[in-house]
């Protein structure tokens, strides 16, 4: 059976394995996707007659808690990859479990302590421009978190079978999933002050 080339060894022309260059190109497109929304935010805010302080509408302590949850999940993600580099599959499983658990916790906190109270107070996206851009940007980000959680659960569960056959390729897959997960963290690092604190 023909093997997919350059999944482990680097391509001579790029110096990278294909998945690595693939994920960086994908993340570049993601920068432009979120960049469009950040640009829209700047346009809406500078064009508005009045703009509310984020902290007067949003829950800053909960936002701070979620920031810390996502940062912690980023470090457990990179530690799961490091565990594979040290040939320790059980440690990898522990760190990967923590990563997707924290990702799920982020989503639960967002839904239960942020979105639900807003809806209970009839603060819908249609209520104001601020709420419209808040729900759009955090909703898109939450979808990215959900996507990352699904991929991480796969590598924690059935996807780890590849470790038995080709450990180096599995390690590369986890590294690529990690790059995506850190990007999701990176977006939140900017979303949090922009929406909650300014």
């Amino acid at each position, binding site marked *: 059976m023909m093997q997919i080339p350059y999944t482990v060894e680097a391509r001579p022309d790029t110096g990278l394995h294909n998945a690595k260059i693939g994920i960086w190109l994908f993340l570049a497109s993601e920068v432009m996707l979120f960049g469009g929304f950040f640009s829209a935010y700047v346009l809406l805010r500078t064009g508005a007659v009045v703009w509310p302080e984020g902290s007067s509408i949003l829950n800053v302590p909960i936002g701070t808690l979620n920031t810390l949850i996502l940062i912690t999940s980023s*470090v457990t993600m990179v530690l799961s990859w490091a565990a594979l580099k040290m040939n320790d599959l059980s440690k990898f499983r522990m760190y990967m479990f923590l990563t997707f658990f924290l990702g799920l916790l982020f989503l639960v906190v967002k839904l239960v302590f942020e979105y639900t109270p807003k809806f209970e107070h009839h603060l819908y996206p249609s209520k104001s421009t601020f709420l419209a851009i808040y729900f759009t940007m955090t909703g898109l980000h939450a979808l990215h978190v959900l996507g990352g959680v699904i991929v991480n659960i796969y590598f924690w569960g059935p996807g780890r079978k590849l470790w038995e056959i080709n450990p180096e390729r599995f390690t590369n897959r986890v590294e690529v999933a990690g*790059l995506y997960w850190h990007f999701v963290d990176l977006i939140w690092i900017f979303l949090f*002050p922009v929406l909650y604190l300014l």
Partner: protein
Amino acid sequence: MDNIENVQKYVRRYLTVFGALAVLTVITVGASFLQVGIITAITIAMIIAATKGSLVVGVFMHLITEKKLVFIVLSLTLFLFLVLMFITLFTFGNQVGIHVS
């Protein structure tokens, strides 16, 4: 990053960066209570966010040890992102619909 000793060294670095990110998050929230103008507040918040972002991209995403091609891709992305951010400045010159008496 091939041998186990090297990976262990990097693990210590990851934990240090994690501590720095947590501290910077607290500083971000603390700085928002400062009684300063909006421009100063935005500048402070963006400097802290950019520092945190650099740590995540540089250390967690291993950009500091990445190949040249990745830097080329990201440089082009950064340029286009900045165009996207500053393109809104053109609206300040747009007088359509504004009636001057």
